[in-house]
């Protein structure tokens, strides 16, 4: 029967002089030494399962997934009430402006635009349309790429797993044959004292 404190030695968090005292005890106690060796063998076995690489890297903050929506930007930063007050004041100002415009008796005629101004409006609308199209294309491309990568990773993981199982099965069979032969050889040998 080993002491329950043996596990405390495993992870190097025991302070002196408790550590030295326990170490001295374990060194001189058969049951505790076996327990300590079993625990070390256990953690060593656990260490054989290595970390894996993430299939896809985590998206960075600069990626779109981290972009805040407009209401998050308005509410964020801890100044919720200040921002809410600002929004309310803006709404009031807009309401007053609309009321002022609609209450005018004289209705102004349609504005006369110069050729340069017309061109500017056209350029702006074209630019906006292009930006929307590019964004849509990027989004579709990202989605297709993600689907393709996920499918590839799934297939690869499946193949690896099958391969490991095949290797493990082959090794186990081979090892059993060797072990049986070894045991048979040992049994044939005369034991000490005979």
């Amino acid at each position, binding site marked *: 029967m080993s002491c329950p404190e043996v596990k405390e030695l*495993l992870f190097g968090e025991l302070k002196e002089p408790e550590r030295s005292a326990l170490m001295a005890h374990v060194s001189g106690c058969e049951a505790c030494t076996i327990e300590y060796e079993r*625990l070390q*063998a*256990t953690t060593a*076995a656990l260490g054989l399962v290595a*970390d*894996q690489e993430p299939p896809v890297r985590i998206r960075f*903050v600069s990626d779109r997934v981290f972009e805040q929506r407009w209401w998050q930007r308005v509410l964020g930063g801890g100044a919720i009430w200040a921002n809410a007050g600002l929004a309310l004041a803006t709404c009031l100002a807009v309401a007053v402006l609309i009321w002022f415009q609609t209450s005018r008796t004289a209705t102004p005629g349609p504005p006369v635009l110069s050729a340069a101004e017309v061109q500017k409006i056209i350029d702006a609308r074209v630019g906006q349309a292009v930006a929307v199209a590019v964004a849509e294309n990027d989004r579709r491309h990202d989605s297709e790429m993600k689907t393709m990568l996920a499918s590839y990773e799934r297939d690869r993981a499946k193949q690896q797993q099958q391969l490991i199982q095949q290797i*493990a099965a082959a090794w186990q069979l081979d090892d059993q044959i060797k072990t049986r032969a070894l045991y048979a050889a040992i049994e044939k040998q005369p034991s000490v004292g005979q």
Partner: protein
Amino acid sequence: MIFREVEDRDLVLRAQKGEVDAFNVLVSRWERRVFNYLLRILREREDAQDVAQEVFLKAFQSLRRLESPAKFASWLFRIAHNEAYSLLRKAKPESEFTFDPAGGDTLRRLYPAETALAVEAAMARLSREQREAVVLKVYQGFKFEEMAEVLGEPVSTVKSRLYAALDFLKDVLAPVEEVSRRRGLAAGGMKHDPETGGTV
């Protein structure tokens, strides 16, 4: 480890001031560890990947609320723990932990690749809480105090879970008769020295 801690703290401070690049460095530095922690808890690669992304998103959104930048690691894993358990609660509950010492026979003559498979099988037989304690301690190298912060439990509870898990794992992975046999094969009368890992 100390230098690494200082660097992380510095990056956290810079990210809290709005430096996006600083947070990006933290992401690239911690994504593998967080992914593997989640993979060992959730046991599904796709779930681990999705939850890892969510963890870093939440970390970014709440980074300003992290009062002690030196505790970034345990804070990040606390988020990961919460997200993982949130997903697990939606999933089917795990079967009860069962103890089967007979499983110890399986590891006696195994090669490393087989041992890794046996380890995975043994880990799968632990309860969620015990498995997480092993992952945080053995695979992630957290101190007991940090584990308590991640799990939101007292150190005594954390130790209790870890040690119960180790008791089960050692019966499967390092059965007593196997260790005794190997000791018997070693030079007669020699004793193991835990400090050096050798015999005296």
